């Protein structure tokens, strides 16, 4: 009897139902695209990282590209720059978007939609166009907008993007005040999902606004915060356009991020193998950070 039950259980486990077939049919095209445009390039990048790549006759060089990377001072400088940028931009951006989202919750749905639209607007503009505007704001000549404000306030004008003292700060400020739209929409969705009875109970207990935020809102949107942290760090580690458009990595490579270094190695110096090795190392760093984040922040999260 017991033997028969086990067989039935096995048959049930491995039987492909009609619904399963439909499921596989639905994901088939997406899987093909995923394999061709995501998995294949990753495998190809891993393969290329072991080559002295040339369009006609690449040479296998073993771990040389990885060794060159670890002997390259500029790579470590780029890692340091990227970590500094990420460590400031990601938490600051999340704090700002959380604050804005909480402030928006006080309004009616219509007003919320207007604000969401306003904050999302920069997201649909071309990054290059936004960079051009920021270049004008940061123009180091006395006619630059920020420098005109400095002059008005009787403060010496700054060499915003060409001085080691201000270049990284300028990029960080630009990232912090731009592109909150997506995060706000995600946060507001999370805030709307909090049961109102929690707030009613807190009010009966005499909790003030900050206590409600501290003891109700923050814990209940923790899974959203974790998601935004992880995606924010991944995006920040891959930051490229800000440095490319605004500073070109200078001055003295103080704003050269890993993404820009990989781009320069691949498309300016034509060192595809080295660029692929650095890209693989960056992927490992990002994966390791994401793993640690899940372990540290994700333990008490219920999905």
């Amino acid at each position, binding site marked *: 009897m017991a033997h028969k039950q086990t067989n039935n259980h096995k048959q049930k486990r491995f039987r492909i139902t009609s619904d399963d077939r439909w499921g596989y049919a639905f994901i088939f095209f997406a899987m093909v695209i995923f394999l061709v445009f995501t998995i294949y390039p990753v495998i190809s990048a891993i393969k290329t990282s072991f080559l002295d790549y040339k369009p006609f006759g690449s040479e296998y060089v073993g771990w040389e590209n990885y060794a060159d990377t670890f002997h390259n001072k500029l790579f470590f400088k780029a890692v340091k720059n990227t970590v500094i940028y990420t460590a400031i931009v990601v938490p600051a951006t999340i704090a700002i978007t959380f604050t804005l989202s909480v402030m928006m919750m006080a309004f009616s749905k219509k007003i919320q939609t207007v604000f969401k639209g306003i904050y999302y607007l920069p997201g649909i503009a071309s990054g290059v166009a936004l960079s051009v505007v920021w270049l004008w704001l940061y123009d180091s000549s006395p006619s630059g907008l920020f420098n005109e404000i400095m002059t008005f306030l009787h403060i010496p004008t700054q060499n915003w993007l060409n001085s080691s003292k201000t270049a990284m700060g300028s990029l960080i400020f630009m990232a912090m005040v731009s592109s909150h739209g997506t995060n706000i929409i995600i946060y507001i969705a999370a805030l709307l999902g909090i049961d109102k009875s929690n707030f009613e109970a807190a009010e009966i207990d005499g909790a003030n606004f900050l206590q409600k935020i501290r003891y109700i809102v923050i814990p209940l949107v923790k899974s959203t915060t974790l998601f935004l942290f992880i995606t924010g760090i991944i995006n920040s580690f891959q930051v490229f356009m800000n440095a490319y458009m605004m500073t070109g990595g200078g001055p003295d490579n103080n704003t*050269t991020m890993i993404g820009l270094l990989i781009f320069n190695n691949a498309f300016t*110096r034509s060192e595809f193998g080295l660029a692929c090795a650095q890209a693989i190392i960056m992927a490992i760093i990002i994966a390791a950070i994401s793993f640690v984040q899940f372990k540290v922040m994700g333990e008490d999260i219920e999905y």
Partner: protein
Amino acid sequence: MKKRILALALASVMVFALTACGNSDSNNAADPTSAPAATEAAGSADATAAPTDAATDTSTAAEDVITVMVPPVTSTYLDKMAVYAEQFHEMYPNLTLEITATSWDDHTEKLNTTALAGQAPDIAEVSYASIGTYVEMGVGINIADYMSADRLADYDQNALDYMTLEGVTYGLPLYITIQSIGANKEMLTAAGVDVASVQQNGWTYDEFLTAISNGTTDDCYGFVFASSAATAADYLNIFGISAGLTNPFTSELKYAYTSENMLNLLTAISDMANSGYTPNYGVDASQRMVMCETGNAMIFGKAMPLFEGNITKNNAAIAAADGTAVEGSINVEYAFLPIPTMDGVTESCYGSVDGLVALRNNDTTDEHLANVMLALDFLCSGDRAAATDAELYLDSVCESGREAMSAYVVEDRDAANLAAAAREISLVVAPPTGITAEMSSDASTLMSEVIAPKFQALLAGECTAQEMYDTICSEAFNVFGEENCETGFIAQ
């Protein structure tokens, strides 16, 4: 069931539509009339014949498409390329030129990317200094293998030498350009400079320093050189002439940017920035001439003879008051000037050769290359060369171009500027022979990874000339070896 089938169909359409968005070239690739027919190109034109004589030989030859990637070498170059393509097709009915127009900003990246993918255009515009990159990549082609000595003899040997690495010629020159500095003549005269004498005899760095000191006011810098991002390399290459640095390598093939001359150059630039004679911030390439046109700069660089035309046009726009003049610009009389020389340095001028090179791609065959050489020769010689050189205010670098040049006499050129340009051309020092592709590539990497980024810090006053020099020496010794770096003074 019907709903599921409908949903599946919609999902498929959506997925295919999304992927199709990023793949607009696939139709072209499948089109036999636009794909390079290199493998079928048998019995093509005689590559050794002059471009104007070979048309009759090709009437029965197979169809072939030759791809060309060029930036706007002159303001009308891309428009003219379409005309040249038609003319070439008329001469060789079986051959079609397919032109890919790029901008100066993205030309190198596009070319590198396609070359690395094995999809390089058959012909591309490059500066001579970049040839090493493509040779290292393995896509350079020895054009002498496919062109007759007769046709190569049409080109000036000194210009061909620029397109040659380790004895192999990879392309044909379009022009030798001289890059120096230019100025507002009136302001320069007011600063106490005898402009005519400087144009005729050159000047010392001390005279230049006095001039920019006199020319600097609250609203005007005495000297502005484009220095932001990649233009920092131009600053060092072109103004480096003042310190006797005519090439990254000496005639003994030692790396030159570790020499005392480099320290002298960096010290001079640092002093100018600290004194306020030149901006201590990165000036965009597009700003430097505008600053001269608006009276915010007396001397600017880099400058070329052709800028006389730009400034003359702006003056005309100011007079016409039609709103096309640079905002806030004033009437400027342009003076093309030599680079000043420091003590112990022989005067010279920075010269560069731009031209077209033939590149290898996945479809390259010997038969196809024979056709490519016909196109290469056609585009670099005769009327095409003359039209380009005339627009750039330059002399032609091939015999057929000089012959055709008579039709392109440029009126109203300032005689003093014309003479100054001719004098500067005679002062250009050709690059030393024997520089390998690897040396060229390493020097380029040092410039982009170490020297240019550090240069911005020098201008901003964040490092001293000595500190920057020490960094360059340290990095260069690692790359080339100390014994291959010049550390003394390069005397000429």
